[in-house]
């Protein structure tokens, strides 16, 4: 037995979703603006709530438990907020400096390994021992990485052997991009199908989805014919 709350969630959800899909009609519409501003408003509120929650749990609760050093985090955070003040904006420079320094420390101490050293070492693979498939894979990877990298050398002139290497790398990149495009499309398709699944399973939700689609399309077409789309759509 489906209760009223569940029905209202599906009805409102499908209507707003179709309003957002209305951008596919090709023209801006007030229905799209309604969906957009709903999402921005509620999502921003959500972000505020959970960040305050994080500050409370990680900062305030620990301070109350006796970890007084974390008082600095509240002080620096408050200083950071002064960034928007026209007169006292400079107060935020100190927390910015501390945060930036720490962030760079965090990332530089690890990406050197995960993004550089380990990637280089993973490219050094056996090229003369192993099964036929392994050799094929290994040779392809080594050739691709080297030639693709030369394509992105912008600091020296590409002539002679380097120029030919870059040209070859470009061809290899196009093959890679075709594969990446197919994987990307698979991902986006999955997003839409997953969304449609949530409004077609179970069956009782489907009429709401189809009715919302028809309603929004009818409204858009009516507004377009009546010249109301431009008038009612908010300024960019």
């Amino acid at each position, binding site marked *: 037995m489906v209760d009223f709350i569940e029905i209202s969630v599906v009805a409102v959800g499908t209507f707003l979703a179709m309003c957002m899909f209305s951008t*596919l*009609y*090709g023209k801006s519409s007030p229905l799209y603006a309604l969906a957009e501003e709903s999402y921005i408003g509620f*999502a921003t509120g*959500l*972000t505020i*709530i*959970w*960040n305050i*929650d*994080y500050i409370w*749990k*990680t900062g305030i*609760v*620990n301070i109350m*438990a006796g970890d007084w050093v974390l008082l600095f985090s509240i002080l620096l955070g408050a200083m950071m907020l002064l960034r928007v003040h026209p007169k006292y904006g400079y107060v935020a420079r100190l927390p910015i400096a501390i945060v930036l320094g*720490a*962030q760079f420390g*965090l*990332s530089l101490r*690890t*990406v050197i*390994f*995960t993004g550089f050293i*380990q*990637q280089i*070492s*993973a490219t050094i693979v056996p090229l003369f021992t192993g099964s036929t498939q392994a050799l094929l894979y290994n040779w392809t*990877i080594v050739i691709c990485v080297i030639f693709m990298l030369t394509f992105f050398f912008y600091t020296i002139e590409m002539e002679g052997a380097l120029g030919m290497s870059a040209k070859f790398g470009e061809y290899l990149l196009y093959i*890679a991009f075709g*594969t*990446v495009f197919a*994987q*990307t*499309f*698979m*991902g*986006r*398709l*999955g*997003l*839409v*199908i*997953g*969304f*449609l*699944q*949530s409004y*077609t*399973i179970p069956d009782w939700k*489907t009429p709401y989805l189809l009715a919302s689609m028809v309603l929004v399309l009818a409204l858009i077409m009516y507004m377009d014919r009546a010249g109301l789309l431009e008038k009612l759509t908010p300024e960019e």
Partner: protein
Amino acid sequence: MAKDNGGILKWMAEYDRRYVYLALFLVMVGPLLRPIGMPISVSPDTRQYYQVLQQVQPGDKVFFTLNTEFSGYNEIQSGIIATMRLLVEKNARVAFGVAHVEATVIPELIVKAVQAEMTANDYQYGRDYIILGYIFPNEAAVAAGAQDFHSVVTQDWLGRPIAGTFLDEIDDWEDWDLIADFTTGIATSYLINHYALRGTPMIMNCIGVMIASEKPYLDSGILLALLQSMRGGAELEFLIGHPGPGLTAMDGFSFGHYALIIFILIGNVGYFGYTRQQQMKISKEAK
């Protein structure tokens, strides 16, 4: 073929893109309303992911990280639910953490989806699973949690203390037996840098867009396994013998791919049959 106005070839070269939108929508919705039930082959990457999960022991502490907005959950929910199902069957202890505010409601959806298995295995909140909520707002939070877990996490998502739960056994990155990351890319690189790089076993289920960028980590051994997008989730459902949203979606998935191929082919026929002829005609006239 018409010479004056181009006819069908001109239409193929210049059709309104809204036909593509409509066709794509219909081929996706149709099979969802009337499922066909197509076979699926299982890729080596999915088998590898399954093998890693099969090695989970009873009592293992698994960090179930949801680095996704709700849209991403729609794509990888099949992998998420299938993985959770397997972990519950293995009697692993699971801690949910999220990196995006929209994902704060996802753990309850996962628990609801595997409620039967959790009840059968007598899963209790706090002893066997816990929902921590939004604990990864930024890289510093991930790094601090990796070095001293209880410095950043002292309460669950509703403000109840985690003292007395199985998380008492967690001090730092070494104490996790597995990280199962479900991601659209929010805090994944931080988890890789601060957990996996230090040796914490990590598996990942990513969206299609991220496959090419995460495969290097799999190839270099930083990641143990990579489940790829909705199709990977469907393959995992097939492997564990428990159909779910992934397998249900595969019909529409197939037809969506075919629709794209057909439209690209139509465009190319139109290009060679009309547009290119027009361009050659114009350049001849210019000479």
